C-alpha cells in the first residue's frame, strides 16, 4: 500500500492533477472564511456589474480630502469622458474644414485635443453641415472646455426649514481621498451576475455544491456498477444474462435522455441538489458494471479464488476479500471519471432548465444557465460565464489527469 502510494505520487500527471484539485478544494474551504455571508444574497441592484473596486460615493464626500497635483489628471478625465463616437465626430469636423488628419490616432487624446482646440471655432460653418450637427459640436466643445477649466463641484444640503440649498463643501479637481479612509469599499473580483449576486462568492459555493453532486452521484454509480459487475462476473449463468441484458440495453439508450425524462417528471420544486445527484448516479452505472464484469471474469478462475471457494467461504467474503482487492485500482479510476462526468451532467441538465431549483444553492450549471438566459455571452459580461466554464474544465481536467496518471501506473503497458 505504502509502496503503491509512493509510486502514485511519483507520476507527474497524477501529481499535477492532484495539485490543481487540492488547490480548488482549499479555495472552496478558505474563501467562505475570508468572505462570509450568503452566496445568493443580491448585493447589486442591477445586472452584470463589472469586476472591480466599488467605492461608496456618499462616504467619500465626507472623508478627509487630500490635495494631489498630478499633471495628467485633466487629460485622463477627458479621456474617460470622450466616447469613440465623439472622437470620430471630432475628426470628421476637422476634415470638414480641410485640416489634414491623415496621421492622427483617435485613441491619442492629447494630440486630438490639441488639434481641436487649435482649430475649433463655432463661427466656422463647414459646407453641408446642418444646424443640428453644428449645435452638437458646440455642446461637445463646451463640455470639453468645462472639464478643461475644471469647474468646482458644489456639495449642497437642503435646508431643514425651507428646503433651500445650502452650500456645505466644494470639491475641486485636485481633491483625493484615500480608499482606506472611505468607510464603505466593496471589492467584487468577478463583478455581479444578472441578479446582482457576487459572482466569485457564488462561484466558490457553486463549485462546492457541484463537487458534492459529483461525489454523491459518482459513489452511487460506482456502487451500483461494482455490485452488478461483481455479481454478473462471478456468479455468471442466469444472473449474468439478466444483468447483461439490462446493461446492453442501457449502453445504447443515451443516459442523457433518461436523465431528461426523470428530471422533468420530478418537477422543479422537488429537485434539490441531492435529488439531482441521486438521479445522475442511478443512470451512470452502466460503464462501471461492464468493465468490472469483464475484469471479474478474468479473475474468477484464479487459484486463490478456487481455493477460497473450496474452503467454503461465503459469496460475499470471496467477492470482498479475493476479488475486490484486484480490481480496487480500477474502481478508484472509474469513480474519478464518474465524478467528473456527473459534474458535467449536472451542468448540461441545468442548461436545459432541468437542474436543481434555483433558490436554494448555486451550482455551476445553474450559474451558467442564468448567464445564458440573460445573454451574458452576447453583451460582453465575460465574468458571469467564463469563470464558470473555467472552473468546470479545471475540475474535470484535474480529475482526468489524476485518472490518466493512475492508469499509467496500474497498466504498465501504457507507461512512457
Amino acid at each position, binding site marked *: 500500500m505504502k509502496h503503491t502510494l509512493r509510486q502514485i505520487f511519483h507520476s507527474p500527471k497524477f501529481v499535477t492533477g492532484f495539485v490543481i484539485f487540492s488547490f480548488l478544494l482549499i479555495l472552496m474551504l478558505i474563501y467562505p472564511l475570508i468572505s462570509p455571508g450568503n452566496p445568493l444574497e443580491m448585493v447589486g441592484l442591477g445586472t452584470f456589474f463589472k469586476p472591480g473596486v466599488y467605492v461608496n460615493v456618499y462616504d467619500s464626500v465626507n472623508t478627509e480630502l487630500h490635495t494631489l497635483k498630478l499633471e495628467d489628471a485633466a487629460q485622463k478625465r477627458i479621456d474617460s469622458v470622450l466616447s469613440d463616437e465623439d472622437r470620430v465626430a471630432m475628426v470628421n469636423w476637422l476634415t470638414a474644414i480641410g485640416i489634414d488628419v491623415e496621421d492622427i490616432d483617435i485613441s491619442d487624446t492629447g494630440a486630438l485635443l490639441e488639434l481641436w482646440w487649435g482649430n475649433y471655432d463655432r463661427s466656422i460653418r463647414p459646407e453641408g453641415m446642418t444646424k443640428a450637427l453644428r449645435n452638437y459640436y458646440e455642446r461637445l466643445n463646451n463640455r470639453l472646455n468645462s472639464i478643461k477649466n475644471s469647474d468646482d463641484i458644489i456639495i449642497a444640503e437642503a435646508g431643514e426649514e425651507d428646503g433651500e440649498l445650502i452650500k456645505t463643501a466644494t470639491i475641486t479637481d485636485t481633491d483625493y481621498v484615500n480608499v482606506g479612509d472611505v468607510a464603505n469599499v466593496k471589492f467584487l473580483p468577478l463583478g455581479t451576475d444578472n441578479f446582482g449576486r457576487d459572482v466569485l462568492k457564488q462561484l466558490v459555493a457553486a463549485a462546492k455544491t457541484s463537487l458534492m453532486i459529483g461525489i454523491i452521484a459518482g459513489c452511487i454509480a460506482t456502487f451500483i456498477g461494482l455490485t452488478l459487475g461483481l455479481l454478473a462476473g462471478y456468479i455468471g449463468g442466469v444472473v449474468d444474462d439478466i444483468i447483461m441484458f439490462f446493461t446492453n440495453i442501457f449502453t*445504447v*439508450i443515451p443516459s442523457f*435522455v433518461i436523465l431528461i*425524462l426523470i428530471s422533468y*417528471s420530478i418537477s422543479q420544486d422537488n429537485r434539490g441538489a441531492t435529488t439531482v445527484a441521486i438521479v445522475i448516479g442511478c443512470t451512470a452505472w452502466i460503464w462501471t458494471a461492464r468493465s468490472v464484469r469483464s475484469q471479474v471474469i478474468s479473475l474468477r478462475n484464479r487459484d486463490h479464488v478456487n481455493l477460497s471457494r473450496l474452503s467454503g467461504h461465503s459469496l460475499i467474503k470471496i467477492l470482498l476479500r479475493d476479488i475486490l482487492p484486484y480490481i480496487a485500482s480500477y474502481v478508484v479510476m472509474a469513480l474519478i471519471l464518474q465524478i467528473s462526468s456527473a459534474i458535467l451532467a449536472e451542468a448540461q441538465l441545468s442548461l436545459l432548465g432541468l437542474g436543481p431549483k434555483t433558490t436554494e444553492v448555486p451550482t455551476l450549471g445553474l450559474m451558467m444557465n442564468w448567464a445564458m438566459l440573460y445573454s451574458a455571452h452576447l453583451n460582453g459580461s*465575460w465574468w458571469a460565464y467564463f469563470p464558470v466554464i473555467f472552473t468546470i*474544465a479545471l475540475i474535470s481536467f484535474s480529475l482526468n489527469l489524476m485518472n490518466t496518471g493512475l492508469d499509467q501506473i496500474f497498466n504498465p503497458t501504457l507507461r512512457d
Partner: protein
Amino acid sequence: MKGYGKYFGKKIIWFLITLVAAVILNFILPRLMPNDPVAAITARTAEGISDVSAVKRIYETYAEQFGTNKPIPTQFYLFVKNALRGDFGLSFSQYPRSVSDIISSAIWWTIALQLPAIIVGWLLGNILGALAAYIRKGFDKVVMPACLLASSMPAFGMAVILLVIFGITLKVAPTSGAYSYTMIPNLSWKFIKSVIEHYQLPFWSIVIIAIGGQAIGMRSMSIYELNADYVKYSRFLGIKDGKIVRYVFRNAMLPQVTGLALSLGSMVGGALVAEIIFSYPGIGTSILQAVTMADYPLLSATTLIITLMVLIATFVIDIIYGFIDPRVKAAQFDS
C-alpha cells in the same frame, strides 16, 4: 455468408430489443414518478384561476387528451400506435402546430450538424492520437494535455468560448441561428452561403471536443499495440516501419470503432446542449423550449427521436464493425 448472417441477425435482434425497451422507458418513466405530469401542466395553465371546478375541467381535458384517464395497457397501446404513425399530438408551446411538424423541421438541422461533426472529430482524433503515440517526445507532450483539456471541457463551454472569440470579438462568424434571420429557406446560393457561415461555430465546437476524447483513447490503444510482441517480432524480422504502423493502426482502430458506438449517446447529449448556445434550430433547442414552456408532448417526442437516432447510429456502426473486424470475417470463412 453464414458467419455474417449470424452476426447481423444477433445485432438486429438486439436493435429491436433495445428499441422496445427505449419506447417502454419513454412511456413509463414519466408515469412512474410521484408527480403526475398532467397535474403539473394543469397547474401551469390554471395559474391564477381560483375556481376549483374550472381547474378540474382543465385537468380532465388534459387527461383526456393524453389518455391518462384510461388504464395503463390501453395507454401504452395508443402511445405505440400513434408513435408508429408519427403522430405525437399537438404541441402546447406552439399550438396549433403538431409535434411531428416541429420535429421534422428540427431533426435535419441536428443530423446535418452532428453527424459530420462527430465523424470528422472521430477521424481527426484518431489520427492525432496515433501520431502522438508514434512520434512521442515533444509532440506527445503538447498534444496529450491539450486533448485532455479539450475533452474535459463541456461542449457548451467550448461553444460559448468559440462564440465569444469568433462571433463577438473577431466578428468573423454569425452568433446565432442556422441561417440569417432575414432569409426564408430556399435553394439559392445566398442562402446556402449563409447556412455554411452559421454552421462553422457549432460544428467546430463539437469537433474539438470529439477530437480530444478520441485522441486520448487512440493514443492509449496505439501505445498498447506498439508494445505488443508482434510489433517487436516484425521489427526483428526487418519489416518496414510504415507497414508495421499500418498493422498497429488497424488493430488499435477496432476498439475505437466500438468506442464510438458506446460513447455516441453522451456525445449527442453534449452536442444537443451546445445547440442551445447558438440557438441552432435543432432538437436540442426544441428540448429547451419544451422544458421551459412545459410542453410535455414535445419533450416526450424529442427524447424518443434522439434515442431512435442514437440506436440507429449504433446499429450502423455495429454493422460496419462486422465488416472490418477480422474475427467476424474469419467466422465467415470457417463456415
